[in-house]
């Protein structure tokens, strides 16, 4: 069980993106933005020369979460909103693994919002890919916390009254150390972001703008194509400037994509002496001597 992260020189790696397919075919609607994410991710694994068994992906519940059935790695299809704590447990138990989290916007910043805040603070070395379609897909079209104000859905026929959650801004305020936004209609760019995110040491977060062709008629491919630009195109954009990043993240007329923020901060695991030598899972537990502990109670 060794994590090969960053070991780009693995000999005789000959996997192809298709090797990350399971026997199940995706059931997403034709044209769904999830396909772009799915494709970029498989390619990213190949680029990073990762093997399926070295990866654990924890999924939320939603259209995005159904992806658990279509990507061949270790997978945990968890509860709605609870992917982050499950992933945290996996990573702490075996920090040699490459741990990713994939889930919807309702999952991640709706019901799961609290875990998002606290996982960002923790800076555990994992990568969270948020499929943001600004709607509840799997339950067939209610508002998400990311839906724009006024958005009319089955649960908000008079229009949403709240302002939306901005996942990138939230991640920035809460302390994630790598924060990016991609667009599932630009898989090349997305692949590039994913690669860097997985390589980043610490908690990396990618918001993917993911059109839901069935239930969101506002935030379509064209909507995004008309609005997005790449931060890379800006000459003097400084990825280590938090305030700058926050300001950028809140831009709405033109939507920045790319990497907003990328800094080094000790990870949570760095602070854990108990896993310095080896992962928890590698410890022998057959006959633990607790004499010392018993003696405490005299």
């Amino acid at each position, binding site marked *: 069980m060794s994590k090969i992260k960053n070991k780009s020189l693995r000999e005789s790696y000959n996997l192809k993106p298709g090797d990350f397919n399971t026997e199940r075919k995706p059931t997403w609607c034709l044209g769904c933005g999830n396909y772009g994410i799915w494709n970029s991710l498989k390619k990213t694994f190949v680029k990073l020369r990762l093997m399926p068994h070295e990866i654990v992906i924890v999924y939320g519940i939603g259209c995005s979460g159904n992806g658990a059935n279509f990507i061949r790695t270790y997978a945990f299809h968890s509860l709605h909103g609870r992917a982050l704590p499950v992933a945290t447990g996996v990573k702490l138990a*075996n920090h040699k693994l490459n741990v990713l989290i994939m889930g919807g916007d309702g999952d991640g910043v709706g019901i799961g919002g609290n875990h998002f805040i606290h996982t960002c603070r923790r800076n555990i070395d994992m990568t969270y890919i948020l499929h943001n379609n600004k709607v509840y897909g799997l339950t067939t079209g209610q508002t998400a916390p990311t839906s724009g104000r006024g958005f009319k859905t089955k649960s908000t026929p008079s229009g949403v009254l709240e302002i939306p959650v901005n996942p990138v801004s939230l991640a920035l305020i809460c302390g994630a150390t790598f924060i990016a936004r991609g667009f599932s209609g630009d898989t090349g760019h997305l692949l590039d972001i994913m690669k860097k995110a997985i390589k980043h040491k610490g908690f990396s977060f990618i918001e993917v703008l993911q059109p839901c062709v069935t239930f969101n008629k506002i935030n379509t491919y064209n909507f995004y194509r008309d609005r997005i630009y790449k931060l890379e195109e800006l000459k003097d954009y400084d990825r280590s400037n938090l305030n700058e990043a926050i300001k950028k993240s809140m831009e709405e007329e033109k939507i920045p994509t790319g990497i907003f923020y990328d800094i080094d901060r000790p990870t949570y695991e760095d602070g854990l002496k108990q896993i310095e030598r080896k992962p928890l899972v590698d410890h022998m537990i057959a006959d633990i001597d607790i004499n010392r502990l018993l003696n405490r109670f005299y």
Partner: protein
Amino acid sequence: MKVSNISWKIGGEAGFGIMSTGAIFSKIFAKKGYYVVDNNEYPSLIRGGHNAFTVRVSSNEVFSIDKDINILVALNEETIKLHQEEVIYGGYIIYDEDSGDITEIKKARKDINYIMVPFSKIITELGVPRIMINNVSLGASVALLNYDLEVLRNIIRDIFERKGPEVVSFNIKSSEFGYKYIKEKLKINAYELEIVKPVNKMLLTGNDAVFLGAVRSGCKFYAAYPMTPSTSILESFASVENDYNIVTKHAEDEIAVINMAIGASFAGVRAMVATSGGGFSLMNEGLGSAALTETPLVIILCQRPAPATGLPTWSEQGDILFAIHASHGEFLKVVLAPGDPEECFYLTGKAFNIADTYQIPVIVMLDKYLSENHFSYERFDFKNITVERGKLLTRSKDIDAGYKRYLNTEDGVSPRAVTGIDRGIHIANSDEHDEYGYSEDGAFNRKIMVDKRFRKIKKLMEEIPPPKIYGPTDAEITIWSWGSCKGPILEAMNILNQKEKKVNLIHFTYLYPFDGESIEGIIEKSNKNIVVENNKTSQLAKIIMMNTGYRIKNKILKYSGRQFLPGEIVNGIEQIE
């Protein structure tokens, strides 16, 4: 007066060290081989309100505190008001006249010896902090019992050593002063305990024992969110995380707690969580996730009076039916309820083995009384806890190609590959799934999978022992109970025994799955069955009826937020007759 048994109580305002003083008193006696049980009563406030700590010391085995107090240390007037009636005929109350005029109160109990010790004046005289009153009172208590002051001195030294010699010295000085005040000034000699075999005994709570059992069992991941009375387990784990290579996570809430533990267990380590009722309510959804993904998990549920926030610092056994039926849908789980710290220790070990062997969640239920009060033991034989991990696959070479995580085996248990190994790739799926783990909603598959998971019960039932019987088999009266009521009932049985009443106890530590058949014989044979439970709705009686059809009509129930005292059970039984 030589006695085999004394009860001592100290009371005062919350926030003034009552608890640590009581704990020292317990220790003094455990150190020399006495049997000790104690009990700490405090409000859910940081300051204000009343605190009381009771210690029962005996030269014979003892299972619970009781109502009768020999020596009451009253650090304020209120303590006398609240507890004076608990003092036995001819007992003692140590008080300070400066903390209130008790001439009126005293009149109610002419039989009691009121011993005025001028705590306030003494500490002023000694020039030590006010909190030293506690030590003065300890010294005085030791003297009243004609006990060895050196034992107290040593303990104080141990405890305060790291705070430097000055602190040690004024702590000791204060206790010596209290001792001398009784011995030399008042020259009172109240009781003397019979001598016992001088072994050094541990003193630990149910929570301590759970913690020890879990460390021994190889628990490598412990997550929790503080909640009385489970919090001390979190603090114990945190204190040894580096020594024993355990990750201890105080997470953002109980939902995160259970899901983190599920993740860790999925990745192959033994994982545990603990909480109280409120946190357990929040964990319900996660519980089902562990069940459907077949991820082993141990949950410690330390009950307190409820619903909602309830009485956070008091005791009740109100959650058993909830625990048994917890989470939506139907699945196999195991619910255990140890009766004392020793059972807490071994059953925690058992809980991990069951969880791993059957890949199911196991709930171990304590309550505030068991979680937080101390009991004395010589030592636990930890070799009796072994580690059985069941069908866990940790090496690729043990896995065939085409691995099926949820293989439909005869015993219902499917080989489980830990993450990271080459051929074990699979989905752990909270959706219903096929043998590989892929989401699958077909009717045929659903039935197969439900049956597979439930089939585990067969082998499991073979492991589940019948309830333990204490006392004679040919009793006139049979008491049915579970969990922490064990101690008070055993004490009550002793008392009834002296009255030549033959009583036995059927005590359940395995509550679910419940083997109705194993007890049907006992119920029908018994002349008089009585259920004793620390709740309002007699939940064990319901479980028994649900599984055997037998209605136990006699019930002794207590739901005031306090555990039973033996005398109450004796009274209850005498009333039923």
